[in-house]
């Protein structure tokens, strides 16, 4: 029964992949080796598609694998398999948190966790900035400092930052849409 197997494999992925979407990747390679539902090359395509569509990457991957192996029911079942363990674990933790929120030691733990959480998010932002505002590969090839920066990217970032500060009430989606248009108009990927 392919649907049951899909649910089971993605349930396991959801249960053991700790730390966000890309952490599911090693598990997906494992599924590929074990079942032959998709090749490693297809998996690389799926990563590219997940990264160029909205939505959490882990969920996109589950939907894509599910669809290619079992059509629309497969897509739904693989996705449900992936999210079921998270829902169960978080519901348990949320219940626990409700009971112990005011405990002194729980407060202490969060005192340490919050700056760490901010640090992790800042690091993730930094890695996106390196990809989108700098051209490390080109710089390594030419060694010219002018090639280190992606001037189009930096200019767009400056414009967006100015707009966000000037119009703080505007929904972030508007800026995302605007940047997509700018990306196409000025060929940000160079193709």
């Amino acid at each position, binding site marked *: 029964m392919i649907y049951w197997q899909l649910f089971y494999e993605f349930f396991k992925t959801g249960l053991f992949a700790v730390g966000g979407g890309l952490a599911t990747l090693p598990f997906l390679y494992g599924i590929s080796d074990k079942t032959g539902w998709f090749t490693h090359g297809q998996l690389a395509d799926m990563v590219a598609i997940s990264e160029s569509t909205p939505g959490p990457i882990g969920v996109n991957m589950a939907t894509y694998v599910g669809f290619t192996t079992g059509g629309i029911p497969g897509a739904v079942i693989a996705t449900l398999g992936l999210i079921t363990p*998270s829902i169960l674990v978080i519901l348990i933790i949320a219940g626990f948190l409700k009971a112990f929120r005011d405990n002194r030691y729980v407060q202490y733990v969060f005192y340490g966790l919050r700056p760490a959480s901010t640090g992790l998010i800042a690091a993730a932002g930094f890695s996106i900035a390196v990809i989108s505002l700098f051209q490390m590969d080109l710089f390594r090839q030419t060694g010219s400092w002018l090639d280190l920066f992606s001037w189009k990217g930096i200019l767009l970032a400056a414009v967006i930052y100015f707009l966000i500060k000037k119009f703080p009430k505007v929904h972030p989606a508007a800026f995302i849409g605007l940047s997509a248009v700018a990306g196409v108009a000025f060929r940000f990927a160079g193709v």
Partner: protein
Amino acid sequence: MKELWDLFVTFARIGGLTFGGGYAMLPILQREVVERRKWATEEELMDYYAIGQCTPGVIAVNTATFIGQRLRGVVGGVVATLGVVFPSLIIITLIAAFIQNFSDMAVVKNAFAGVRVCVCVLVFNAVVKLWKKSVTDKRSLMIFLLVFLLSVFTSVSPLIFVLLSGAAGVLLKVWEGRRKE
């Protein structure tokens, strides 16, 4: 019912506007959940993110379950989570069914190169807001800097940072209490 529907729609919108993984969701979450609906505070968002780092599963899903559960119990948790995955399910299925080589198309590549620039500005802006709430003294500044630099320059798992900084929080506070006595 109305509230559950609101949860579903809000989280579906968040899922549909998240480009590039869980962290990119933060600016949208701040806008929709903290500022617009007031379903959670900035501090709570940070807690959910930290917990999401050391529990299994996708961070976006974990955060949705947390907020849904807080508002409407178990049913709320499930509804918010289904909401956050709903757009992916539709969009990915459509792409898988109808578009060959989607991620190789020039228009898609260019658009997403533009979107990535926007996401890094949005994340930067989100981090500034969180910074004000989380980096409150020298010790929390130390934790922030250590975690930021180590995650940029090493490949240590975020799980380790979360566990260590939670322990550091307890030790620092207990030590502070001892010194005052």
